[in-house]
């Protein structure tokens, strides 16, 4: 049986890769995918702890996070389609309406 530390390292690695994706990619769709990756890393964390402690509650939350990811993906992609229709682009540094 693997100690918890391996899973935590795996989770951290995936999280950081996802974070790099969010920060550096200009294509918003890839950014959204990276966010999915981050959420997945969190899931690994939750399920691992659930296994270590023998408590199934962690898996329940993992389930919620999957649902949440689905919702987020749906809304995010809807926004992307609407934005693309207006501006003909999916590059995030052109989405600067929030600028001062």
């Amino acid at each position, binding site marked *: 049986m693997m100690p918890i530390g391996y899973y935590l390292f795996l989770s951290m690695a995936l999280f950081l890769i996802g974070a790099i994706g969010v920060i550096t990619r200009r294509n918003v769709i890839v950014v959204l995918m990276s966010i999915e990756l981050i959420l997945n890393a969190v899931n690994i964390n939750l399920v691992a702890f659930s296994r270590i402690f023998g408590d199934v509650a962690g898996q329940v939350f993992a389930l919620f996070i999957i649902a949440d990811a689905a919702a987020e993906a749906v809304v995010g992609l809807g926004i992307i389609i609407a934005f693309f229709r207006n501006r003909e682009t999916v590059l995030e*540094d052109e989405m600067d309406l929030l600028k001062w």
Partner: protein
Amino acid sequence: MTPSGYFLEHLWLIPLFPLVTAALMLLIGRRLPRSAVSFFCVGSVFLSFVHAAGAVFQLLAVAPENRVYQQILFEWITPGAMPGPGGLVNFVADWGYLLDPLSCVMVLVVTGVGFLIHVYSIGYMGHEGGYYRFFGYMNLFMFSMLTLVLANNLLLLFVGWEGVGLCSYLLIGFYFLKKSAADAGKKAFIVNRIGDTGFLLGIFLIATTFGTVRFTSQMLSDPVAYAGILETLRAMVDQGRLAYGAPILTGIALLLFVGATGKSAQVPLYVWLPDAMEGPTPVSALIHAATMVTAGVYMVARMSAIYQLAPVAMDVVAIVGATTAIFAASMAVAQNDIKKVLAYSTISQLGYMFLALGVGAFSAGIFHLMTHSFFKALLFLGAGSVIHALSGEQDLRKMGGLWNTIPATSRPFLIATLAIAGIPPLAGFFSKDEILGHVFNRHNESLIMDRYLFLWAIGVVTAGITAFYMFRLFFQVFRGRSRVATELEEHIHESPKSMTVPLMILAFLSICGGWFALPVLWGENNTFGTFLEPALRGVKDEIGGVEVGHHTLFKEYLLMMASVGIATLGIWLAYRLYLQYPKLHSKVAAAWPRLHNLLINKYYVDEIYDALFVNRVKDLSTAFGVVDAKLIDGVGVDGAGWLARVISRISMWWDKWVIDGLVNLAGKITNGLSVPVRMFQTGVFSSYAVLILLGLAILLGYYGHHMHMIVRNLR
């Protein structure tokens, strides 16, 4: 018994009919066909005439003492309490109509003659442009004139007075593209304003003296609340607060007379009337002969109660009247324009009327007003028919020999000419004789010569001149050899029925209109005078100052013979000079060149007025113009503008550099302070994500330090 009945209760309809059609014409008349315009406009005047006649008959049904009908439609001007005789009075000028014998005569003349002239206009104006406009103005005039004669107070009368003035202006300038017509309109308007100033002042003086402008409170439900001038005057005379010859009454009478001289073209304000002939001929007939110019006579007769107590004013009226009569008659002698001759004749006849008023023979003045409106309307309409036949020719020297060419015009014209010349038994004879008789009666027998005898002499001479110039006109137009231009000769044609039928009716009236005075021939009173007497009685018989003193029948006949004789003399002279020896009159003119020039040029009155008033006013205007340009515009307006500009420049500088500077400074400071913060706000979400991660790293760094301590402790 008080007068009543449908027509009296609907007195207000009489002026309303023409008003409605006038509004119709002036608003949508352009779109109506000519037949509709004629139908509505002439029909409305006819309805007015029917209502007027009905009202008069219903008024005649009661005893002479009760022949007053008054109707107050609404209170029009109610300024409230003002000082009057015997404390504060509540001054009210109402919109009300009054029908008494005096307004009966006027309303019948206005609607009757007005209707005939409207019918005539259908033919006369048939080929003119602006047909609807002409009839709109004519109906507006009818409304104003009827308001004038039916008004129950002076202020409403003044409304009508100004209304007819306006319509006169509009109709004189009907051919407004012609400069002379437009100028004539302006002249009429301005000269009338001079008179109206006096009239208005007279109204104000009456209002302050009597506290009311209503003529009478007879036949009103509450005579105390609705005070009338007549009753107030009577009360004040009874209390001894006003007496015969009181200065204030003389002032009122003179001021009102100033108004009358303007409207009725008396010396010195007569100059507008000859120029007013620029208007279409029916206008000259209706406004400048039959109705509007008699408004002054009507007004003075309406205020007869005041005039009877103002002997000085009466003398002024009589003298001005007589002067005007002979002055205008002499000018008519030398005129060559057919309408100008008639215009001067009108002025002269109006002078007669004022002469009658001035000697206290108010009913005789109104009588002459009525007969004059018949035969003068006929003369003008006949002249219009002649002009129509000659395709617009107005010069007497280019007429002649039309007697049999246009019989339907020439026969009535002869009747009118005889009537104005004063040949019995036509209307003009009776009325003129009545006036001269009254003037002569005022003559004090114990003196050889007094002013009344002098006035009478003027009147008689004027009658002779009148006969002379009228027959000069008649002979030149209808008799003798034709001098018509040959190209016009073949176009000579009789006027249409719509024009000749009114001429015949007016001819009939010119013959019979004077027969009210027939009883005078056998020593009785003039029926017409008896009818009018209640309306003209004045406040006190004994101080009226007019002895109606019965002249003997013999003297009456003597006077008649004198006037008929001099008229015949005038006719004979005209016959000799213009018909028997057609060259003779130019020889006569050549014999007295100066006199002839004087008459041709109308005594240079227009030139004198120009030199004395018009040009002086122009000079004054020029001077004021210079003052306006240099002082007001230059120093005042431009100076103020310059000052404002300087101040605004200073203010602008202050605003720009100090106020705005402070505001900008505050903004700049804020802006400068925000630069480091703003740098983070890129609007790109990934940079925000970097910041989040950075924050996380910092937090973890700090937290990791603590964890390190914990782990070490545990170990």
